[in-house]
């Protein structure tokens, strides 16, 4: 019970800090908004995208991208907190070490879901339509991806402990994952070798799953497979990061 209580304590404080300085929330959603408003219209005329509603293909990809990039860089805030001595102050209290991680991840997932909801709401006038149940399933997947990347980012931050090392490290992980996930354009457009590599990218499965959900096809096998994949990955990343917290924030 103390874990739940401590997690809630850490979470509410982290939410307070975001709300006091919401500019980062807005900056975080600015890039996907640009893609939606400035890149999306280009796709409308492309017959390769099924000719019909290009946004049904494009918006799910943007959401996955937001989930990856929006939470990948949360480790920077942790390094700042380490430097400010905030973490050290917590360490001399009985607060649960796991809660220090989970409370932060919960904040990151919440802000991701808020950003995603804004993005979906803004895409609706362009002709995006999706069933509530399918959307909820897609958001559950987004939450898991958010948990995966934010806990990964915190774990890496605790290992490297410097912004200079964190940025290139995270970028070299995210950029190939992003390009090989078919987020911007479906990989079906690409050559066979590219598709073969992409099959090994777990997030290309997530993108396909999100597209299936927005197409109103929750029974598509991509959906359950992607959910299993991200659940396992999120669990692995959280456990790894929790271990990092337990050892370095003893």
């Amino acid at each position: 019970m103390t874990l739940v209580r401590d997690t809630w304590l850490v979470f509410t404080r982290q939410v307070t800090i975001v709300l006091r300085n919401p500019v980062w929330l807005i900056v975080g959603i600015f890039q996907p908004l640009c893609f939606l408003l400035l890149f999306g219209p280009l796709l409308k005329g492309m017959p390769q995208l099924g000719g019909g509603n290009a946004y049904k293909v494009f918006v799910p990809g943007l959401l996955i991208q937001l989930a990856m990039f929006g939470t990948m860089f949360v480790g920077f805030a942790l390094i700042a907190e380490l430097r400010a001595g905030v973490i050290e102050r917590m360490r001399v209290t009985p607060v649960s070490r796991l809660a220090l991680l989970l409370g932060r991840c919960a904040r990151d997932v919440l802000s991701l879901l808020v950003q995603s909801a804004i993005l979906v709401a803004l895409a609706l006038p362009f002709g995006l339509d999706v069933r509530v149940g399918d959307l909820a399933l897609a958001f559950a997947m987004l939450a898991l991806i958010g948990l995966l990347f934010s806990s990964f980012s915190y774990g890496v931050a605790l290992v490297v402990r410097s912004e200079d090392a964190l940025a290139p490290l995270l970028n070299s992980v995210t950029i190939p994952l992003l390009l090989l996930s078919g987020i911007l354009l479906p990989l079906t457009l690409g050559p066979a070798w590219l598709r073969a590599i992409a099959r090994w990218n777990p997030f290309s499965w997530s993108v396909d799953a999100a597209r299936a959900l927005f197409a109103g096809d929750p029974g598509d096998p991509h959906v359950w497979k992607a959910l299993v994949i991200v659940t396992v990955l999120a669990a692995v990343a959280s456990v790894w990061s929790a271990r990092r917290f337990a050892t370095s924030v003893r």
Partner: protein
Amino acid sequence: MIKTAGLRKAFRSGKTTVEAVRGVDLDVGDGEIFGFLGPNGAGKTTTLRMLATLIRPDGGSALIAGVDLMHRPAEVRRRIGYVAQGGGTWEEVSAREELVYQGRLHRLSTAESRRRADAAIEAFQLGEFADRPCKTYSGGQRRRLDVALGVIHRPAVVFLDEPTTGLDPQSRAHMWTEVRRLREEGMTVFLTTHYLEEADALCDRVAIIDHGAIVALDTPAELKRQVAGDVVTLGLGAGVGPLSAELERQPYLRELERTAAGLRLVVEDGAVAIPQILRSVDAAAVPLTSIELHRPSLDDVFLARTGRSLRDSEQKS
């Protein structure tokens, strides 16, 4: 309250090993203000961080408020408060919010945390700015909040890492008052400092640490007495000869030297010696033009024990 034996810590960076703390033995009493004095890099902070459960000692043992540091660090945490050199508050939140939060982190109820936050704001005089975000605070205000946060759960021992470094003289005096008040409330205070005046004025006992080892440990007065004794300088008129012969016979005298203007005496304790000196001067009917007492500073102690001045080693580092 704090008892350590052979506390050690070495840090490896690459192939070289730096022995930051090499065998520290301490015995800090209940309700004491204990000071750790030494230049930067002497091992003060490392020792403090070991005692505050933040880094694990390589060897030795420590008992803090009756709890074994090596085997039950979580138990130790419940009994101690720790204030780091750099503080540790979020810029965006206010002192009041931080105090309540800190109470909650220590597993107090929200209502009790609020009560204690109110009390701390009153006691540490934070009222003027308690509801403004921390980023607007001055150095002294921030430091007072740091200490208030460190003691919100009323620990038996509080560790303060250089509580007054970077503060102006007024804020420093203010901090000394706060530290003394903590002791009056029954806390044992363990602090590090590289200010001689601070160790002298504030601490009941001082350990002087250099290169990771304690080179002297006692009350500031006793440390200074052991080293040099007090110097009394007398400005005298004619007839010094018989007077100095008389003074030479006194038990309190350690050294006597004739100067152009009179005499320079090294005595055990100036406060005790001066009335007796004056009586001798009076009896010898030598006109007295001036009398001056110079007590040795802790810097003299540091110099005597380490062969160099603390002020010099500060400037070099």
